[in-house]
């Protein structure tokens, strides 16, 4: 349906256009790879993270609950990811002894630092919740978790007013070198479903799922939920921990806000 009078001019223009489009597409693809390697571009793209946190917090509220599921939906095997069998000498020693010598410390910007044995933690009032675990990779699994509410422990230790983040220290080294760690802000740490789970599906936490104690932060993706816990520290900032981005995976490019 092209008009005849300008057909020839159009044909050469079309060729030019086609070539430009192909060239732009090729440049575009290579360009996107190049852009992805630029710190500045990553920084700009990261701006969306702050917006996500604010808007999602506003929509969900500080205490909005993650969905909980009936027992019939529990997955018989809860798929583990990341470290599944920590090899650090300290962990293996503690595990060999059934974690009888393991203690969880809670310190940093608190009035009264705590140090609790596994038996003491198991004796604390606990919350049991059947929740869905969402891996950043895209899959989900449902499990039943039991353990004390983190907010209760924080209240018992007394959080100082300068504290802004709760840092979780772990005993596993996913790359064989750096210890896993994670952090939550106080809103997520004090959320009623944020617990320190010592049991999965009614049994002591299996090694693959983070024995003896792991974090459950049900409105976050899986990488936030630190396993193999050894200590919890209240801090005002996390610039001097690891590479300063608030977690093992955050130090490797993943966003600190993991609610989406």
């Amino acid at each position, binding site marked *: *349906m*092209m*008009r005849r009078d300008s057909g020839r001019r*159009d044909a050469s*223009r*079309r060729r030019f*256009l086609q070539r430009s489009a192909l060239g732009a597409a090729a440049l575009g*693809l290579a360009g*996107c*790879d190049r852009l*992805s390697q630029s710190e500045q571009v*990553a920084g*700009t*793209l*990261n*701006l*969306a*993270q702050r*917006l*996500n946190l604010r808007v*999602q*917090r506003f*929509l*969900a*509220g500080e205490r*909005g*609950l*993650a*969905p909980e*599921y009936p027992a019939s*939906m529990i*997955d018989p095997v809860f*798929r583990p990811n990341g470290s599944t069998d920590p090899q650090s000498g300290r962990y293996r020693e503690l595990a060999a002894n059934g974690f009888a010598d393991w203690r969880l410390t809670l310190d940093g910007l608190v009035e009264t630092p705590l140090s609790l044995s596994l038996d003491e933690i198991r004796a604390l009032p606990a919350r049991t919740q059947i929740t*869905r675990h*969402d*891996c*950043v*990779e*895209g*899959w*989900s*699994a*449902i499990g039943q978790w039991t353990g004390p509410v983190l907010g209760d422990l924080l209240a018992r230790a007394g959080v100082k007013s300068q504290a802004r983040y709760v840092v979780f220290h772990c005993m596993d080294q996913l790359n064989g070198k750096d210890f896993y760690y994670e952090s939550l802000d106080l809103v997520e740490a004090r959320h009623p479903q944020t617990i320190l789970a010592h049991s999965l599906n009614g049994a002591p936490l299996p090694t693959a799922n983070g024995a003896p104690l792991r974090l459950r932060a*049900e*409105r*976050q*993706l899986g990488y936030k939920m630190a396993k193999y816990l050894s200590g919890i520290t209240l801090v005002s900032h996390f610039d001097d921990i690891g590479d300063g981005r608030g977690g093992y*995976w955050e130090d*490797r*490019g*993943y*966003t600190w806000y993991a*609610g*989406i």
Partner: protein
Amino acid sequence: MPDSLPTTASAPRGRRRHPLPVRLWHWFNLWCLVVMLMSGLQIFNAHPALYWGSASHFDDPWLELYAIRAPNGDIRGQTALGPWVFDTTGVLGYSAANGRESVRGFPAWSTLPSYQYLSMGRLWHFFFAWLFAGAGALFVLYALLSGHLRRDLWLSGAQWRGLGRDLLDHLRLRFHGPHGGYNGLQKLSYLGVLLVALPLMIVTGLCMSPTFNAAAPWLLELFGGRQSARSIHFIVAAALVLFFLIHIAMVLLSGPWRQLKGMLTGGPRVTEEPAATSTTPTTRSGRDQHDAS
């Protein structure tokens, strides 16, 4: 904007066939959707399998891209769709990335970045999601307020009734005249994209967010759980790719240069009576109701 179409010089002043907001959104949206699609495939590649329900039943995905070692030692890429398994070596499951064959869902040329880099794919996806949703919301508002939706996109009674014949005409590659308004099938596909597919992409995307699930658990239930939402997100994205391909085919079949120029410059001005001057009607007159009214 100066118009190089000589025929329009004599045409009476009127609204452009494609008003500026339509053109701006059209090209901005193309850019957003390409980035969203390619970064989305990057994210999908982190776990190239889809399920129905809340959780992933790993032994029962309805779609999976993976690689196997054939009896002769070769690695083959495979795609399992329900009970069917296809050999898709080179494209799906196993393909070359950076000159090296590797196990990956979608091939390097379709993902952003081209190499496996989930965290970067997420950064692109979630940044452009805001641009895409913002521009889309503005456009829907414009379409409602300016009358674009009612005047140009909504089907007339006759068009609703004539959809069957429209479909047959399209299948025979017989299209309606280039001037005047969109035909019924065309309007239906634009409405479907604007009011169904694009909003569905946003909502199913949000339903994969655990914090958003806490904000609107009912929405998650509506889609049948997080893995269902992920599947629907993927299926609607595939439908949008199909729309894109048909859209390009239609442009190529109906005067690509004129169409492209129209979407860039706005095209000829349209008057309120049917513009019959320079058209070569491809359908018999009498039932040609594709004017701009």
